[in-house]
């Protein structure tokens, strides 16, 4: 391990309502692999975005190769030798491997692109990295793993000195991961600095030299990997903060009927043989890390995405759900994690959004009864304490919390019995969060059944009667709230099988 290549000191960053980075410091040495760990929302990505110039820091200093720097954009960072290899790859599928690697700086020969030279150079590069890929192959014919290796090769060819791997193994097979590790070890030999972001404990133990753990926007400490155990890391990740009033026991009495039963649901790579039951009046928490397949499961059940196989039973009866319409008429609802993209017609008013799920109820023949529509919407606006000058207000002008209430109101007006809340409190302030928690409890007491997908452990522990944990498209465990702890959930959430 050599000298320090990057030092980030006292980095501070605040977004409206969120203190995303609270005086975080971190350093990376040449020839080491530093793991960066933490729960979703701990601030890992924000920190990397500050480093590469996507976000501007509020305060703090970044020293890179002995100079204090502040990149204006990722391009500048790249020029300086800092490259991020993303989980989602930025490759152009119909170009060849070599064309992708040299994109933007193609070698020219008399004004025309010299493909032959490009292929030769790419070949040399691959030989150096001991990667076996044909440079003339079309990118979209390669596996994700191979594509990722091309991305690494591209970074090397741009004289990268510091490479950041953002959950690189998420989409790889075991064999590909081994290959990736061989390359990473090689890069370490060549005295590059490497930051490795991952949730997978076994990989961290295997490949990294040090682990820096973040929680709630703070750096909670750095450990030497070979001297610590998996539990040490988990404990640092979850901390010992006491969260507001976690549920101590399930509010669902034994023998309560099952309202929704999913059996052997399969949909793509992210939903593999998922089966579970939801009881009347229950809040069923779905926990897991980002990309565990929880949203995909919800969408598959709701008919938003195609399902390969699996049956859905509502109140004991098998129902056919292939499109959202069928799900809605079966009494299901789905509040998306991304309300702007999937939940709201932003240019339309509160009323127009609110009645979208059940417009026929407000129609006589084809005509909308606008008076009734307004009255009913007003009732829900009052009930949800939605702050707005009037129900004709355009949704785009509302705050995040109030927008979320419009989405909730829309499903309540639709009178759905089974509510799937996907990250119901994402991006909204603390006050509105509390109101949404209260509302969910009230709905459950009234006999509505709720599936709550959440990436916040505190939220899961506070709201759920029962918890299902997913990892990589599979259910890895089920916990009753009485026995659930953060450590148990984290263990299940990182359990690969």
């Amino acid at each position, binding site marked *: 391990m050599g000298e320090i290549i990057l030092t980030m000191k006292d980095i501070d960053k605040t977004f409206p309502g969120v203190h995303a980075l609270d005086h975080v410091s971190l350093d990376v040495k040449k020839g080491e692999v530093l793991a960066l760990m933490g729960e979703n929302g701990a601030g890992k990505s924000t920190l990397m975005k500050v480093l590469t110039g996507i976000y501007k820091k509020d305060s703090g200093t970044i020293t890179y190769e002995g100079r204090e720097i502040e990149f204006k954009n990722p391009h500048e960072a790249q020029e300086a030798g800092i490259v991020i290899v993303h989980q989602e790859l930025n490759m152009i599928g119909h170009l060849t491997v070599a064309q992708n690697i040299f994109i933007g700086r193609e070698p020219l020969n008399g004004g025309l692109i010299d493909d032959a030279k490009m292929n030769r150079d790419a070949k040399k590069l691959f030989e150096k990295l001991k990667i076996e890929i044909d440079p003339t192959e079309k990118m979209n014919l390669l596996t994700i793993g191979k594509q990722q290796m091309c991305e690494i090769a591209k970074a090397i060819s741009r004289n990268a000195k510091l490479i950041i791997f953002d959950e690189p193994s998420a989409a790889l097979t075991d064999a590909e991961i081994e290959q990736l590790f061989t390359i990473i070890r090689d890069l370490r030999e060549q005295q590059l600095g490497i930051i490795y972001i991952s949730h997978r404990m076994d990989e961290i133990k295997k490949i990294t030299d040090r682990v820096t753990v973040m929680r709630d926007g703070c750096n909670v400490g750095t450990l030497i990997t070979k001297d610590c155990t998996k539990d040490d890391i988990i404990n640092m990740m979850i901390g010992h903060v006491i969260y507001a009033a976690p549920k101590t026991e399930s509010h669902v009495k034994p023998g309560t009927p099952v309202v929704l039963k999913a059996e052997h649901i399969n949909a793509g790579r992210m939903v593999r043989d998922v089966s579970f039951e939801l009881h009347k009046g229950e809040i069923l928490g779905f926990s897991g890390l980002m990309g565990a397949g929880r949203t995909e499961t919800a969408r598959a059940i709701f008919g938003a995405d195609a399902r390969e196989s699996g049956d859905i039973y509502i109140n004991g009866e098998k129902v056919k759900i292939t499109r959202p*319409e069928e799900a809605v008429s079966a009494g299901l609802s789905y509040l998306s994690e991304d309300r702007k*993209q999937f939940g709201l*017609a932003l*240019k339309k008013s509160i009323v127009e959004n609110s009645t979208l799920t059940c417009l026929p109820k407000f*129609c006589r023949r084809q005509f*909308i009864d*606008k008076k009734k529509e307004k009255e009913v919407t007003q009732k829900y606006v009052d009930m949800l304490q939605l702050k707005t000058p009037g129900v004709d207000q355009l949704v785009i002008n509302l705050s995040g919390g109030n927008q979320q209430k419009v989405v909730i109101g829309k499903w309540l007006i*639709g009178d759905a019995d089974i509510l799937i809340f996907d990250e119901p409190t994402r991006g909204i302030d603390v006050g509105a969060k509390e109101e949404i928690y209260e509302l969910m409890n009230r709905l459950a007491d009234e006999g509505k059944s709720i599936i709550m997908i959440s990436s916040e452990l505190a939220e899961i522990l506070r709201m759920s009667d029962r918890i299902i944990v997913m990892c990589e498209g599979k259910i890895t465990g089920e916990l009753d709230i009485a026995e659930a702890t953060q450590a148990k959930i984290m263990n299940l959430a990182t359990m690969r099988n």
Partner: protein
Amino acid sequence: MKKFKNLKFVRAIGFNRVVLICVIFLLYLLFAVLTPVLHGGASFVKVERIFSAMNYAYFLGFLALGVTFVISTGGIDFSIGPVMFASALISGYCLTQYHAPLWLCLIISLIVGSLFGLLNGYFVAYRFLPSFVTSLASIEIAKGIGSVFTKTQSVTWPTAGSENSWYKNLVRAGNVPTGLILLIIAAVICGIVLNKTKAGRYMLCIGSNKEAVRLSGVNTKKWEMIAYVICGLLAGCAAIFYVGAYTTVQPGLGDNFNNDAIAACVMGGTSMAGGVASILGTVIGTMIMSLMQEGILAMGFTISYQYVISGIIVLIAVTADTLSRKRKV
């Protein structure tokens, strides 16, 4: 200024529309002054001029009303001009060559228009084609079918006074501008459909966020397609008013009206991005476009100037729309 914006009637019809109405009067004034100067003492202030401008406004109005529905869903249909001509050619050919009864021919015109709408709508909504691709295809198909059906002959509908010419009364009965009355009735119906019915609500919401509407359990495909069918049906209506005013239709033409109709629509406050539409705005926009082409001809310029101007109007109107949305977000 702020006070004016808050006046009740201004709020009711929208500040934008009030400005446009002023533009109509200003344009009229401009043409009234410039025509005698530029065109050797010819006069613009004549009843015949107004009727002539109105002739253009009728069919253009129906085209623009139709395309308002499509644009409000976030799509576009610029095959409406050729579709209108195909409708007029096919129905006219049935009338003159096969001696089908006039009422049937008018219905045929509506059916042809609707079928093109169905074609566009099906491929956009159910086959996920971009609407501009379906428009391109429909333009060719409409022009081709019109030519094939009539063996590349132009079709002349019965002239005023001859047998089977009562359809002319739909445009103008003596000095009664029946066309205007019918256009207003059509606009009122369109306004009701767009603003007061389930269909209109769904279309506008689809234009704002199709995925959100789909996830709310709405059959978005069906409603999106219906918008195109309405557009096609109104292009079929436009065909009747076109022949009512101009009698003769030639195969292989019609594209130049697309731009005028879309310009009228966007100028009136319908957003090309979808989700926001104004029927009243479309009608006012139609009036402006019609007055403009009449004025240009009256001043002694060729109609080609009109194409330049309507092209520029589309650019300005869409830029203004994009800018105003940027400011809001």
